């Protein structure tokens, strides 16, 4: 005899360790099955776009750090590209190579965090997360050498970066890249063929690729459905046209595919950094202050620049009225837009899959709410 159940609404978050910040969901369950989900945003809304309207173009770099705070370098890069496009600044080659190295390191760190926390949500308490965080720690040490900061870097400036890498950075980077590959191999040995990971993630929250494209979802989530779309390859910015790397694709479009794509992409980032190290040449890391002053006054107009962030297309839309501060700044936040299909992913699923699915989206509340 089937036991009768009654739908019950549960409030999840905002203060919950598995919500990756301060995310709140109102979920309606029928027994173990999810029947309705309503995401509630805004607990970390700081009005960054409004704040930017009262700051100079260089000062805003510090605001972008605090959006997606596990991929500050990538945020810096997207913002700086928009400023350079708006003001017509020609960047210095050495600065561009350095910021490519920095942003690829940041991509590895971000993917490791996503993977570690996903496995934590799966119930693999501690070990995978500590492995991932240990490697991220080494990357943060490298950032500390580059710019003195670990999380909120503010390393990039219009035209390049603000200081050259010290001599001891290069051997440390070389060692670090080897360590990253070892850690990823180690993680994969334990996890990518793990029976429990398989049974919990394969075939859960499958999304058709037409729906993903229609919902503007980009990044590893889109590539996990087999769509070959990576802005580093399709619309190369900086010097991405001078490096070669494989685009990682999976066709299953389930939670496992999203996990797998992120893990493999860390290896490609290592490949890109090695090529950057080969091609970087001595020179200035940014144009002189005569060419690009601290107070930039871009001509009246607007510009949109997008990069392949760790979570998807990260774009900045800037409008200039000719003054030292932007008239309007808008961030195309991939974390927020990737949540568009959250209901489709969760409804009909089981309670136990809720946080796994949520973790496989890889979102950062700092970027969702800005």
């Amino acid at each position, binding site marked *: 005899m089937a036991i009768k159940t009654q739908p019950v609404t549960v409030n999840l978050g905002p203060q919950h360790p598995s919500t990756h910040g301060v995310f709140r969901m109102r979920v309606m369950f029928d027994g173990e099955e999810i029947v309705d989900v309503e995401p509630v945003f805004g607990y970390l809304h700081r009005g960054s776009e409004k704040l930017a309207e009262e700051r100079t173009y260089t000062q805003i770099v510090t605001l972008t750090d605090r959006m997606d705070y596990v991929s500050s370098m990538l945020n810096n890069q997207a913002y700086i590209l928009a400023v350079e496009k708006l003001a017509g600044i020609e960047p210095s080659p050495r600065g561009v190579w350095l910021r490519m190295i920095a942003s690829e390191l940041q991509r590895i760190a971000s993917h490791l965090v996503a993977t570690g926390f996903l496995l934590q949500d799966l119930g693999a308490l501690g070990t995978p997360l500590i492995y991932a965080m240990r490697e991220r720690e080494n990357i943060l040490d490298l950032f500390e050498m580059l710019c003195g900061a670990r999380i909120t870097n503010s390393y990039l400036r219009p035209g390049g970066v603000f200081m050259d890498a010290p001599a001891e950075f290069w051997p440390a980077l070389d060692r670090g890249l080897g360590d990253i590959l070892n850690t990823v191999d180690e993680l994969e040995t334990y996890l990518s063929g793990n029976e429990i990971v398989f049974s919990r993630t394969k075939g859960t929250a499958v999304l058709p690729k037409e729906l993903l494209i*229609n919902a*503007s979802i980009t990044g590893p989530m889109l590539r996990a459905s087999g769509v070959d779309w990576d802005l580093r390859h399709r619309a190369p910015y900086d010097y991405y046209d001078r490096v070669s790397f494989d685009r990682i694709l999976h066709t299953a479009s389930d939670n496992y595919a999203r996990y797998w794509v992120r893990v493999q992409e860390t290896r490609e980032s290592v490949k890109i950094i090695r090529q950057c190290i080969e091609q970087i040449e001595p020179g200035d890391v940014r144009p002189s202050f005569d060419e690009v002053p601290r107070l930039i006054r871009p001509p009246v*107009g*607007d510009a949109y620049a997008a990069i392949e962030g760790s979570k998807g297309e990260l774009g900045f839309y800037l409008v200039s009225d000719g003054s030292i501060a932007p008239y309007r700044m808008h961030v*195309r936040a991939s974390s927020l837009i990737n949540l*568009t299909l959250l209901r489709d992913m969760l409804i009909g699923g089981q309670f136990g899959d809720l946080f796994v699915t949520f973790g496989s989206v890889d979102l950062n509340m700092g970027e969702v709410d800005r």
Partner: protein
Amino acid sequence: MTTVWSGGALAEAIEAFAPGSVESSAGSDVWLKPESISTVCEGLKIRSEFKFDLLSSLTAVDYIDHFEVVYHLTSLPMNASAVLKSRVGHGRTEASIASVVPIWRGADYQEREVWDLMGIRFDGHPNHKRIMLWEGYPGHPLRKDYVTYDQSIASTAPGAADSLKGAE
């Protein structure tokens, strides 16, 4: 490398299937009449010469005498991008435009964000609610005439009116 549609070429191509919908064009931008946004976006998504299947970004700018809604479109099969703009709410009247959620679901949260922070209504949006701020929040903060908390304190302090005049 992504092909970027020039405003002139795109305006001509849009006029070919939706006559009378383009207001003007310059650089890489096309300004559309707000009432024709649904027809044009539908065409841009479906027609084989565009195939704009991904809405990259949707935002709005407050130009004081009017608002401008900005659409950045991407075509995955053609590897092309285009920018559409539309002027609404002339003279700071009630600003509204048709929702593009029926065409691209990716517009869902972005349109809610524009409504929340800029106060532009999207007719036909399936869940037209605030997203970042709570229901009942006074005003729309990204508007240029919004008085922030510290500005409101400064304007009520003794002698504030004179000091603000000095700042201008």
